[in-house]
């Protein structure tokens, strides 16, 4: 494997005695669409600003393409940023906005015009060169901001919540547009977002952040399927989290006594645990199935089950969510989601009635509890 394009080593940033970014280690490979995902206030924007050079780290190293960036000011880093407010210069035309960085580099006006034209093609804004920013829509301003960064041919483009200011429909379009542009130009993108859907559908790799620390770095699918801790499990998608203790470990299956629901389950998802370890079982809502309590099922797939009473059914369109209270136990009701492809799903189960919740042996991911 070739050396990483960006490598952050023990990066920390302190504001007023509080660590906003704490000992972050990350490596980003060239050409990746890399995501930094976390709730608001988790330090992800600060991390991006550290890479851009708009903030100075309290400690640690930022290495881009083999060179330490710590003493390189923002205007000399091979990095360009797309700001959350887009930060389009209001008194410059679209063409002047996009060509601004090249003009500062002292490139000839004809050359700039040529390159602006080419970049406008890429972001699909051809013909709007002479427009003023106040004549453009939010989506167009977003593209201008992106073009203004891309034209500099940086090693990395940093994007700070680029879709947050757009309305839902436009956001959907821009999502795919951004991915397509990134693949076309082949420049590494690092994008900050608080929206897990955005992150899962756009990025090659995601670093989940909370309270200034990196929680997990993985590909979207792995993050969803094998979260390393309960923060990641709950932040990405929704999850049923049940506490338990390992009772028996076999070659490829782990037996866990779920103290929360007083039921022993089997998991084959991961098996690097020892007997008596405290664990949490994470089960995604769509991996659980509702079943009539009277039907005795011999299907080996549904060996894990628990009985509870149906609290409510919430209709979402394509799917419905069922909330099931586990009788006599002081735990959060289980959440199950099912496709509404079966007409009778809703009719079959009555609110208040007892139902069986089953899941396959590979559905529950176990995470260690400290």
């Amino acid at each position, binding site marked *: 494997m070739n050396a990483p394009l960006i490598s952050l080593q023990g990066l920390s940033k302190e504001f007023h005695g509080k660590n906003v970014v704490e000992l972050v280690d990350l490596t980003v490979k060239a050409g990746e669409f890399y995501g930094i995902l976390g709730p608001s206030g988790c330090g992800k924007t600060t991390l991006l600003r550290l890479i851009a050079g708009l903030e100075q780290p309290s400690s640690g190293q930022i290495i881009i393409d083999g060179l330490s960036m710590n003493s390189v000011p923002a*205007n000399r880093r091979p990095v360009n940023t797309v*700001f959350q407010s887009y930060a389009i210069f209001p008194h410059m035309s679209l063409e002047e906005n996009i060509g601004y960085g090249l003009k500062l580099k002292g490139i000839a006006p004809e050359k700039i015009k040529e390159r602006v034209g080419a970049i406008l093609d890429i972001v699909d804004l051809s013909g709007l060169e002479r427009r003023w920013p*106040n004549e453009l829509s939010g989506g167009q301003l977003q593209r201008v901001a992106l073009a203004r960064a891309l034209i500099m041919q940086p090693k990395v483009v940093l994007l700070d919540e680029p879709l947050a200011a757009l309305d839902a429909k436009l956001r959907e379009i821009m999502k795919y547009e951004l991915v397509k542009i990134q693949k076309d130009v082949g420049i590494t993108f690092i994008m900050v977002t608080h929206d897990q859907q955005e992150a899962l559908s756009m990025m090659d790799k995601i670093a989940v952040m909370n309270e200034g620390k990196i929680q997990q770095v993985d590909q979207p699918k792995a993050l969803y399927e094998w979260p390393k801790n309960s923060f990641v499990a709950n932040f990405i998608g929704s999850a049923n989290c049940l506490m338990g203790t390992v009772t028996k470990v076999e070659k490829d299956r782990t037996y866990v006594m779920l103290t929360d629901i007083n039921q022993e389950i089997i998991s084959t998802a991961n098996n690097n645990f020892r007997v008596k370890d405290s664990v949490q079982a994470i089960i995604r809502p769509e991996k659980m199935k509702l079943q009539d309590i009277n039907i005795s099922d011999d299907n080996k797939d549904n060996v894990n089950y628990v009985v509870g009473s149906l609290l409510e059914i919430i209709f979402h369109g394509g799917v419905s969510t069922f909330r099931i209270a586990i009788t006599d136990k002081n735990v959060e009701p289980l959440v199950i989601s099912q496709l509404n492809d079966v007409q009778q799903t809703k009719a079959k189960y009555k609110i208040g009635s007892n139902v069986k919740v089953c899941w396959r042996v590979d559905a529950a991911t176990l995470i260690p509890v400290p």
Partner: protein
Amino acid sequence: MSIGKLITVVKFRLRNPWLNISLLATLLFFYTPIVVLIVFSFNDSRRNIVWKGFTFKYYKKLLSNEMLLEAFVNSLTIALITTILSLLLGVLTAVLLWRFKFPLKPLYQGIIMVPVIVPEICIGIAFLIFFNWIGWPSDLIWPVSLAKIIFAHSLFCFPFVAIVIRARLIGLNGECEEAARDLGAKGWHIFRDIWVPHLKPSFIAGGLLAFTLSLDDFVITFFTSGPETITLPVKIYSMIRFSVTPEINAASTILIIVTIFSVGTAILLQKESLKKASAK
């Protein structure tokens, strides 16, 4: 304004007679003296108390009155240089107060505003005593001889400019500055490409304020001008001491026209740059 909108306004006015009366009274109160002043500048009478007939005589006389013309040129020169100095000091002050934190900042902020609050007569007397005390030479050649008045005017004009510019600075999008830096801009580029275009409307407004304040200032000028450095307001005052002739009216009318003209130009310029800068 569309016709429909106009009709609504007229209807509203008709339904509210008190609004009309107070508006009319205000306009009369403000503008009658000025209108009378301008009308009587064309009065063909030495004493200028009753209307005798129309004439341009006093404007012609004005143009041949070298002392008056000299005062007018002095006034314009002082106002122009004061405007430039006030803008420079004003922008520096505004940026200092907006950007930086330093010890005793509130005190400094208060001191800056002193010339706005203190009665002009006090500033005038203070300058008179100050210039006497440091022994400011009184036999300087022409443009340099105006320096004393220019210093005094700049001092009381620049806080106004600073207030106007600071108010505009608050609306600056900080991310624009960072975006420029991110694209390779250094301090000077950011000033030229981000700050100046954004601040342009406030430069015009502030500059205009300084220009008009300086042009028609009487009190401070009265205490700082010498026999060689008479300005138009001071000259008009000294002419009144002999008799109120239509010549004085004519001189005042010209002063009014210059003021209205500069205000009008500034408003147009400001509108233009605001229109450009109004981003979504």
